[in-house]
Structures are given as C-alpha cells and as structure tokens.
C-alpha cells in the first residue's frame, strides 16, 4: 500500500473488520509503520475500560412504575381517541359506506334528536323522589376514568400495574401495622351482628 490508509480503513482494521486483499494491504502498511500497532493496542485497552466501567444496561429505579407510567399514558391516549380506533395505535379513517346511508337518514335522525333533547330537558327539571323507578334504575354507564393517585403525604407513593386478571395497586411508604395488632379494634361503631339483631326487631 503506497498511500496512507484512510480513517475508515484504519477504523475497520482496529476492529478486525478487514479481510482478503484489504487486510493484506493494511498489514503491509503496518509492517512499515509499527507505531500503528501500538495505537491499535492502546485503543483496544481503552475499549476494554469503557466496557468495564459503562454498563450496557441499567434498570431504571422503580421499574414497575416505569412500565406502569408508559401503559397509563397509552391508555389515556386511547381514551382520548374516537371509540372506533381505541384498541390499536393510530389507525386509518372509516370507509365511505356510512356517508351514503346518512344521506337518507338525515331528516328522520334530526327529528328524533330534537325529540330526545326535548324529553331529556323535561326530565332533568323533574326532581327525583326516593323510592321512584329512577332511583332503582341501573346507573348510567360511565366512560372509564384513568386511574390517578393522590397522596397528601409526600413520603407515600403509589403505582399500579394491570394484568389480565386484575389491576394491582402497590402503595409504598405506609407505616407497618404491628403483627400483634387486633384489626377488629380499629372498626368504629357496633359489630355487624349487633346491627342485624337490631334491624330484625
């Protein structure tokens, strides 16, 4: 090799990435310039130091919270998106078939909507009385609310993780309850048996 090898060739040679003719040429150059071997050894030593001192992988502190935070954010984004696209990452628009059906249903739908709005308005103004059918009715389905935490004590932290079977909430920082404590003593008021006996009289 007559010309000085370029930095790309030297880098590949240091990393033992050369083969065939390129390797032969580089070896011929190194034979004439042995200081390159010293450079290679020095860089190899530095590489070993870097690998020993800088970990390839570091688990973040509170790894459960780390994952839970990401999943919670994904869930919030899903809730914020229209119902048709909630189960997947951003998906393409709905087909055009719906538009043509709407063209025929527009007038009846508007009339039905006005009727429903009138009835809803008149119902809202009626006071609910105890024991009415409304009080016994099933509660209206509510949109799921993202799970949030509030702790007045800054030493207490909470995080959760959803599995297929359950949502597990973990609370850190609470004071331990002594093992010999009688939990029943913390209940205020009469025992359940006493309440039932009183109601049956």
């Amino acid at each position, binding site marked *: 090799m007559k010309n000085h090898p370029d*930095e*790309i060739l*030297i*880098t*590949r040679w*240091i990393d033992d*990435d050369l083969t065939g003719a390129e390797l032969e040429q580089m070896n011929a150059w190194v034979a004439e310039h042995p200081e390159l071997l010293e450079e290679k050894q*020095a*860089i190899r030593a*530095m*590489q070993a*130091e*870097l*690998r020993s*001192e*800088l*970990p*390839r*992988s*570091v*688990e*973040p*502190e*509170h*790894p*459960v*919270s*780390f*994952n839970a*935070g*990401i*999943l919670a*954010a*994904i*869930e919030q*984004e899903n809730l914020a998106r229209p119902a048709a696209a909630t*189960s*997947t*990452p*951003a*998906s393409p628009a709905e087909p055009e078939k719906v538009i043509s059906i709407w063209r025929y249903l527009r007038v009846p739908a508007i009339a039905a909507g006005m009727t429903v709005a009138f009835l809803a308005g008149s119902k809202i103004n009626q006071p609910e009385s105890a024991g009415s059918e409304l009080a016994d009715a099933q509660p209206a389905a509510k949109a799921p609310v993202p799970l949030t*935490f509030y*702790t007045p004590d*800054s030493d207490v*932290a*909470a*995080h959760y*993780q959803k*599995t*297929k079977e359950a949502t*597990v*909430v*973990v*609370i850190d920082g*609470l004071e*331990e*309850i002594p*093992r010999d404590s009688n939990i029943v003593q913390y209940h205020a008021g009469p025992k359940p048996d006493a309440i039932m006996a009183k109601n049956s009289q």
Partner: protein
Amino acid sequence: MNFLHQFASKLLQGAIPPTTSGGHAPNEPSDNELVSKAQAGDTAAFDQLVTRHRGKVYAMVMNMIHNDADAWDLAQEIFLKAWRALPKFENRAKFSTWIFRITHNAVYDYKRKSRIHSDGELDDEHLSGERIDPGARTRPSQYDRPDQALEKSELGQRINHALEQLSTDHREVILLREVQGMEYKEIASAADCSLGTVMSRLFHARKKLQSLLSHEKPS
C-alpha cells in the same frame, strides 16, 4: 396491610421477567412476535418489549445526558413515541436498532431544547436536582444511593468526565459501538447517517477520547 403489600409486590415481580441485557430465553416470544402483537393493539406485548429493552435505553440516555431525573422521563417518552410509531415499523428490521433510532432523536431534541432555553450555553441550573420536587412520585431520587456512589470507581469517573467533553455525535458513536456493541450498519441506522460517517466519527472520537483520558490520568 403488610401481607397484601408483600403479596402484591411478589405478584408484580413474578409478572416481570428477570433483568436481562436485552436477550430473551428460547421459550419466550421474539421481539418481532411481540411487535406484531403490539401493532394489533396488545399492550401486554408492548409491556414485555419495554421490560426487555428499557435497561439499554435507560443506560444510553443516562450516558448521553448525564441527568438521572430527566433520563427516567426521557426513557419513558422514548417508549411512548415507539408505541405511537409502531404502525410505521417494518417488522423485518431489528426492534433494538429501531428503538435506538428513536432514542437518538429524543436525545438530540432534548439537547436542542436545553440549548434554546439557555441561549446557546448549557445552563447547569436547568439540570440541577434542586429544581425537582422531592415529593414528585414519578421521579426517582436524583441522589446516588450509597452503594451506587461507592461503586463509581475513579476510572469510571474519569471516563464519564472525558465523555462529557466529546461532542454529542462522537459520544453517541462511542457508546453505540464500544458499550452497546452495535455493528456499523446498526449505528448508521440508529444515528441516521451513512456508514462512512459512522466510521469517520468513530476514528476521531476514539482519538479524542484517548487524548482526554491520558490528560485525566492521575500522575
């Protein structure tokens, strides 16, 4: 309440596979299998991907920005960006290389914003741990645990100090090659540059780092 706490902790620890360096056991689904499921909306599969790759991403972010508190948030943001970009990911490629590409973009954005807020100079006050609410439950303590402080050897401190003096491009290529062990092609893909640029940066970064470390050596 104690036994419930312990039971819940054990349940969660059991649900999370042991810490790995990014590899997975032969009987576990591959990254590509998990990605396919996640692309179909399976957040549990995505959760497994996060568990598998969070260590490498967090290590890379920490070494690039040298701010523990911000590194935690930035690493979470990277996985959130990955979730949003999943429909665009071609499952033939390596997920780990792709996540490092997102890491590259996020770190560079972070550094650009840091420079903008400090009018061109890196303002250490913005990175100060004292600005972080100690009661904030989403962030870990910015102080080293005693065992961590002891573990940081003198050599490690010199290396970190030398790395901080490299440019972002040089620091990145050193970390991806020497620490993460990535091939040139993977580095080019992650750093969004050509193969030649990767090798040229590596050449100069190694020289610069050698020089810095030799100056830092105690007499």
